[in-house]
């Protein structure tokens, strides 16, 4: 294999890290942690997504303009989740019996 064909070390490390996080999140799902199960699952999902975005999607090498564009979708999503959930979790009669 010629030198140029080798995968960059950071890609291999990220791939291994992602598979390790997958194993971790599946194992953690079976631990009786109550409400914390959801927190652990979503935290690990966010960590995996961050690795994919920064390394595979090369956000760590990009300028602030690209990062702004990438963050914009998540920014509007956060507003949508925040406002809608603020409504539903505080409704006394949701779900309707």
């Amino acid at each position, binding site marked *: 294999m*010629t030198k*140029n*064909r080798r*995968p*960059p070390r950071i*890609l*291999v490390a*990220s*791939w291994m890290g*992602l*598979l390790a996080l*997958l194993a971790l*999140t*599946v194992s953690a*799902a*079976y*631990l*009786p*942690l109550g409400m914390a*199960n*959801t927190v652990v*699952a*979503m935290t*690990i*999902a966010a960590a*995996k*997504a961050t690795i*994919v*975005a920064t*390394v*595979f*999607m090369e956000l760590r090498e990009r300028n602030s*303009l*690209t990062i702004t*564009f*990438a963050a*914009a*979708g*998540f920014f*509007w*999503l956060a507003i*949508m*989740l925040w406002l*809608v*959930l603020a409504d*539903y*979790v505080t409704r006394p009669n*949701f*779900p309707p019996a």
Partner: protein
Amino acid sequence: MSDARLAAQFVDMRQQHEVARLGMWVFLATEVLFFGGLILVYCVYRTGYPEGFAEAARHTKIAIGAANTAILLTSSFLVAWAVSIVRLGESRFASLLLWAAALLGLIFIGLKGVEYSLEYREHLLPGFGFEFAGSQAHAVHLFFAFYLVATALHAVHIAVGIFVLAIIGWRAHQKRYSETYHSPPTVAGLYWHFVDVVWIFLFALIYLPGRSG
């Protein structure tokens, strides 16, 4: 400094590459909100019916879901590897990596089909003979309606991605990309990684709840 692949409106290849990449990020921002709307509905009903959603999630096939996650993560790695070596002039070898990633995408869809058929036989798919006994039937129905719509829309994205990777792989095989011209594999890679990110969240929302209960 003239390149046949440089479109008239750009100053140089670098600027053209930047614009292509930024355009894909704009599209991906709309995709975040597309899948985000579905995930919002999931969050609303999961807060409404926590026990029902846990009960429903226990009926999902976690072995297939986890295998499919590993498959997509690996295919993303192969695409990232391909994109990095296309830029070093290794277009031919990169085409093999892109086709391997597309093949993993096909395996993903195949396993998804197996999963749907198992759930069909267990009467878990809304619209396809859904039946569930017990007090949580209504919430389980809502969960599997989300499951079916979200995973089917995701599978459509995977199918588009397989098609794109296969074509980009073919063009890489023909050595159409080089050290200076590599926007198509880069942009196709961004799309594929994004579909991977969507799956990472769907996996956590669909397969993991209720396992310890």
